[in-house]
């Protein structure tokens, strides 16, 4: 069996957010919810400052606290290492959100894609309403609905349940890479099988010194970060007193 994981090369990542946008399209993710997100930091004081950009997503932790705490097994592990969610079993207790140290689980506070449900037109006889627009293009709830998502999860998750990244399990099943990996123009995301010693990710993990987020918590995240982007150079020095 495979054990899927991802390497994110911070030197290649340009912070363009293609991963986040493509993820929203692929998974019909509603406003305010980010299966694919980021952590940005600014270090130093002006004029000596740097900006750091770390793309984030569910780490598909090997020892996932969100799974351990879920009372109904709605949040569960698949044999291939993916942390999966089943909205049908989710009671909306949000204990997984409390337990996840990475802030990657979101709750549907209201009906998703509220904007596209609106039946009001802006100019009577001139424009169509968002709901009509969706109907015209044959979408389901949203005009850009991706029906492929339905293969393993509700196409759009309902109000009152949580949701998060699934490593695009529906694409993996078809032998395709997760959409964010495919969409990354800089090839900063590398996906593969940790159990395959010859996989690209194992080569990169062995070659560089990877780090994972909050490793001290023992969650064993499946997202590894390598390198760090820096185009800066500085004259050789020993400092001074």
């Amino acid at each position, binding site marked *: 069996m495979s054990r899927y994981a991802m390497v994110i090369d911070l030197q290649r990542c340009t912070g363009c957010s293609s991963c986040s946008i493509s993820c929203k399209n692929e998974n019909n993710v509603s406003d305010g919810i980010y299966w694919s997100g980021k*952590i940005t930091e600014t270090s130093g004081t002006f004029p000596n400052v740097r900006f750091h950009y770390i793309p984030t997503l569910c780490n598909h932790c090997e020892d996932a606290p969100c799974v351990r705490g879920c*009372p*109904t097994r709605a949040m569960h592990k698949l044999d291939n290492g993916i942390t999966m969610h089943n909205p049908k079993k989710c009671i*909306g*207790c949000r204990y997984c*959100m409390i*337990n996840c140290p990475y802030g990657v689980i979101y709750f549907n506070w209201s009906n998703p894609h509220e904007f596209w449900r609106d039946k009001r037109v802006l100019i009577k006889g001139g424009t169509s309403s968002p709901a009509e627009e969706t109907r015209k293009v044959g979408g389901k709830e949203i005009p850009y609905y991706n029906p492929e998502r339905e293969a393993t999860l509700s196409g759009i998750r309902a*109000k*009152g349940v949580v949701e998060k990244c699934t490593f695009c399990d529906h694409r993996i099943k078809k032998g395709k890479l997760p959409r964010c990996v495919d969409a990354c123009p800089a090839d900063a995301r590398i996906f593969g099988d940790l159990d395959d010693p010859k996989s690209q990710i194992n080569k990169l993990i062995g070659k560089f010194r990877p780090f994972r987020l909050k490793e001290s918590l023992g969650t064993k995240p499946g997202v590894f970060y390598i390198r760090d982007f820096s185009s800066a150079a500085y004259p050789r020095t020993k400092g001074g007193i």
Partner: protein
Amino acid sequence: MKLRIWIGLLGLGILLGLMTVYRVYTAGFVVYAKTDVLVWTLPLGAYIFFSLTSSGLAFVSSIPIVFGVKRYETIEKRTIFLEFAVLMGSFVCLILHLGSPLKVIYLMLSPNLASPLWWLATLYTIYLVIIVSAFWRIHTARTSKVLGVLVFLIAIATSTTLGWLMGMTDARPTLNASFFTMYFPLTAFISGLAAMLLFSLLTAYFSNREITQEKNALYNELARMLGIAAGLVLILFLWRSIIGGISSTAEGYLAFKHIIGSIPYNIELWLGLFIPSILMLIPSIRVTVWGKVTAGALLLIGMFAGRLEFVLSGVVRPLGQMAEGRPEFVSYMPTISEILVVVFGLSIMLLIYTLGDRFLKLEQVPE
């Protein structure tokens, strides 16, 4: 007449609650002070308050059975009924906290025994069945031996499991404390004592019932117990703060600094613990009805604030990608709907208690 006004008020509370239910299930949980960070707020705090008070009442009601103190039998039936009423209030708040309460059937169909939340749900269901049976036994056969012991055991289990639930969350330093497994049963006990005193005395006052000499002595004894226990809890509470302040990690220290400045923390400390223990340890105040009622009411208000403080302390600091674009601590102000959830729970609980007091002979003593 007085009773009618009272029932009318409770009816109004329930009506407002039902309107909130409608809003929550049509507009969604946006009617709460929702942010992706504050995922547990007032409705859950209220649930914890009610459920722990119910467990505390269970400790009080099992004193005659478990510890063989016969004279407490006179309050057993009322206390058990109060346990039930308070538990119903907690269920109302819990249901309105859950995003999809109808799916709780999956607790049975797809159980996760590693989850403290699963255990909590299961234990509270068993608890409900046992207290209803125990009450029924006292009401019909006027005996409750085995069931009384079970009520005691399950009250320990529920209050400590709640500690496990919070203690498991390594991601949240303020909640990551085995402290809660001890703090919860203890605070449950003082909440139970306070609720028992408050409800018994207020019921006697409003229904113009004479408090017998024997009962009065018993209430004074309970009040002393309350003073001592609240004092002990105060020491524990202060130590929690001191440890957080002087010897924790930088992250823990930041959280501590935030908590001690918060309003709920100070309500719990001063109104909930300090003043009630002082009041109940001064004999001249302890023997008065107003003294006991004030101490009981303050303690319950303080505990309510404390449960909220404790829930918020776990969530006000955004984690990971949720912290993007957010301040270090997110502030919280309950919405009207959240407040109405509490009003709903409280009204249901008070209505059940009022009806029970009227029709179920709560003064009856088991044989």
